[in-house]
């Protein structure tokens, strides 16, 4: 009897070991399929995570908003409602401490500093994992593009649905960073 219970429990744990990663997939796919896609202007740089590999950290131009609400505590959740500007890039329409009732197009960011009515916050989708050989090139490509042409030509494509956000791609001059290296190699040939 004891053996049966132990085996059953072991199978439950085994199942949990599948369910959690599968739920991560399901949640992400759900946002990609049913969420709205936004373009966030970015500035990438590339560090490494010891277990998940190389990534580029994305700093977004959207990082502060004027608000009348006070008493913001560092690290708290802040609901950032989104809209689009005339060029089709994401723009903040409102921020609040509570879940917005009138829209599903919002993300949950972390508050940073608050000073004289201006709240700084950090968007959560700030890591784009990349092939370890390409992360550094992506950073170089970004710097190059920014140096010799107009600014604001790199952005992240993010699917958003009810607070959940999935970062789908980072594009520099319309090209995905994952394909940038090949492109630069081809152009030098």
């Amino acid at each position, binding site marked *: 009897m004891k053996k049966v219970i132990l085996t059953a429990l072991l199978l439950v744990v085994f199942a949990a070991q599948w369910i959690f990663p599968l739920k991560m997939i399901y949640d*992400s796919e759900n946002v990609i399929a049913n969420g709205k896609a936004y373009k966030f202007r970015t500035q990438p740089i590339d560090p490494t995570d010891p277990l998940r590999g190389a990534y580029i950290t994305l700093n977004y131009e959207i990082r502060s908003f004027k608000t009348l609400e006070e008493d913001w505590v560092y690290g708290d959740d802040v609901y950032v409602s989104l809209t689009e500007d005339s060029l089709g890039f994401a723009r903040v329409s409102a921020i609040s401490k509570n879940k917005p009732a009138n829209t599903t197009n919002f993300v949950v960011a972390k508050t940073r500093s608050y000073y004289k009515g201006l709240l700084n916050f950090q968007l959560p989708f700030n890591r784009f994992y990349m092939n370890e050989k390409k992360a550094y090139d992506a950073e170089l490509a970004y710097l190059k593009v920014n140096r010799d042409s107009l600014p604001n030509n790199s952005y992240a494509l993010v699917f958003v649905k009810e607070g959940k956000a999935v*970062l789908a791609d980072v594009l520099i001059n319309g090209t995905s960073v994952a394909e940038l290296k090949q492109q630069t190699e081809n152009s030098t040939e």
Partner: protein
Amino acid sequence: MSSKFLKDLPEMTEQGVISEEVAQNIRLWYQHRSAEKPNRLLLISGVLGALLIGLGIILILAHNWDFFPKLVKTVLAFTPLLISQALVIYSLQKQSRVWVESTATLLFFSVGTAISLISQIYHLPGNIDNFLFLWILLCAPLIYLLRSKAITLLHLIFITWWAVSSGYGYRSQIPWFFLLFFAWLLPFYRHLFYKEAHSNMISVLSWMLPLSFTIALGAFVDKSELWGFIMYVIFFAIIYQWGSFKTLKEASLMKNGFRVLGLIGLLVVMIIASFRGLWKEIASDGIQGGPELYLIIPLFLILIVLVTMHLKKEKKTEFFIFVPLTLIGIFLLGAFHSVLATIAINAITLATGIIFVRDGALNTSFRKLNLGLLLISVLIACRFFDTDLSFVFKGILFVSIGFGFFLTNYLMLKRKAKS
């Protein structure tokens, strides 16, 4: 060790040191013992092999094979998990400890591989803390379900890593879950302790358990230095007490990390607190409530229970048991009066050193004698930094301590030789 001893047995019987019957009994005892134990070398190499393979897989996948489509990458993420779960079931049926421990280790890293690769594919937000947390949570039940020692050690290492990564640093949060994760291990430790008190695993745990907690404890200090010190004093006193109970105390010091770390920890706190500067800060802060108290109060109750048990059980009470309790009193006093507290802590440190020297000399224990001398000399050396003495005086003091070390040891050696 045993084979060398067994080789000597015929010679010992020949020369009449032991009888043939005793020799036969010894042979039987070794035979019986080796039959009970699994092949230790195989066990260690199996676990180490699984550990390296598991880590290797994680690193290979962390490379990010971006030419594979998403579906292939997802299948790759789950393949190690599927294989190692199957292997665990197989080894349970095989009922081999070596297999169970090795495949459990592999499974541990396969779980990490699956969640790390999924976060990589979907660029999921979150730093390493959330990732480690989920990993720990999904593998913690394996300790009991597989009765795995390898998972126990991995759990301990990973919860310490998690506590450090989430609890230390700018704007970090108190890692309360560490307490739960740590407590989760304790029944298994207790089970092992009663089943195989003299095994290597118990020795390893007797160092790793207190070390892990010592490292993580600092993350529970929010703002108050005073509560931080009191928390460490109580914790070191608890592990010292635990290590002083009979079964552990009789083991060699190498096997009693609790007692050694508890003692060293308390002496280090005493030396740090002997500096005047610290008390000025503590007195200016005064006593404030804080989240530290949620931990301090239960720890203090545990300490009281352990001390009471000790006083009831042991016929001869060690004076060192009362040192931590006095230290707590001095720290509380320090919140109101920094000068008194400075004097008190220096006095009690000096007294502890002297009592160690006296006990060491009386019981011919070189270890205790030299520990006492060391404590006194470190205390004096530290006082050179915050007192205004002339160099000549400091020099003379050091020369006399040096002679003291030599003389006391020499005299005791002589006495030992005589007796």
